[in-house]
């Protein structure tokens, strides 16, 4: 009998339109093989599933990645896609200062999703390969993340650098959260009679 354990995590990808949410998700999902070279606006939401093995364990976290539309037109529909989410990744584009300024608005949105309480959020800066066009510095990103207790990552989907790290962090955190809940429930159960 197999002792493999599969955990499931619903991860929301949020941020302004055109920051590269879909590029990040598709590059990660295809292990770097499919960076979308032309822009296609995400309508409502794209969903994909990616299993992540947790090192040194028999645990696989199946990430249900909800790549949500960033365009304002879809704002009113987002809450229904966010129900019972377990984690989120906030995305901004380092060449687009507006996308960075919009982060507080996205955090406000995240606060309304009550299922998300407890999990630590993740902030991802994209397009770092375009150094000459950069308008948000690493320091600014790190400071914002620190202020709001987010984990901070920088990546470039176009050059497939560091796109896995934020997802691995979410998967690991999800596994730790599960073990913590299991410990609490096991302890409570042991006291039953």
């Amino acid at each position: 009998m197999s002792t493999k354990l599969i955990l499931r995590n619903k991860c929301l990808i949020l941020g302004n339109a055109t920051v590269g949410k879909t590029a990040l998700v598709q590059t990660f999902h295809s292990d770097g093989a499919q960076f979308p070279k032309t822009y296609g606006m995400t309508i409502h939401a794209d969903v994909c599933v990616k299993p992540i093995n947790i090192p040194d364990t028999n645990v696989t976290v199946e990430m249900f990645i909800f790549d949500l539309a960033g365009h304002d037109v879809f704002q009113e529909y987002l809450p229904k896609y966010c129900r019972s989410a377990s984690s989120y990744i906030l995305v901004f584009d380092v060449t687009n200062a507006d996308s960075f300024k919009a982060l507080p608005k996205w955090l406000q949105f995240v606060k309304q999703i009550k299922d998300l309480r407890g999990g630590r959020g993740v902030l991802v800066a994209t397009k770092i390969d375009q150094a000459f066009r950069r308008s948000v510095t690493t320091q600014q990103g790190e400071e914002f993340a620190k202020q709001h207790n987010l984990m901070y990552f920088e990546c470039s989907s176009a050059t497939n650098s560091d796109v896995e790290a934020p997802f691995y962090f979410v998967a690991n955190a999800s596994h730790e959260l599960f073990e913590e809940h299991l410990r609490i429930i096991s302890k409570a159960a042991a006291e039953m009679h």
Partner: protein
Amino acid sequence: MVVPPDNMALASSGARIAMATSEHPKHPPELVLDGNLKTFWMSTGLFPQEFVVTFPTQITVSKIIVSSMKVAQWNVEASKTDKPSSFEPLGDQAMEDTDNVIQTLSLAPKEPVVARHLRFEIARGFGPFVSVHRVVVYGERGVAEAKNVPQAAES
């Protein structure tokens, strides 16, 4: 004359789990049928979650008691057919968050319900993961035809 009701949802009396949406190697769904509150089935993420309990023969259900943790909404359905299909709602209940104390769902259908399979759906939880410790189903083996069928036909 009065015989204490039997728990039909015990593996030792032939009940089994037909399916479950989560499988933890140490906390498999079968543990809800061992009559023990200390052992439990653990969900492994996402909602809804569900499991189906199958009885060896049709039974007439008079009461269902489920012990769980962190469940926000239970929906219970029954199927009379040999194959677990054509489920019909039996009852549902919104639960209160009791923190880390056992919650108890207690459902007593107005009319006894005939079932070969019972589906227990957890629509939402108070946390990302929930546990179910014990399912107790009181009832009688077989279909209590004399009492129920004419009533059902008339109403």
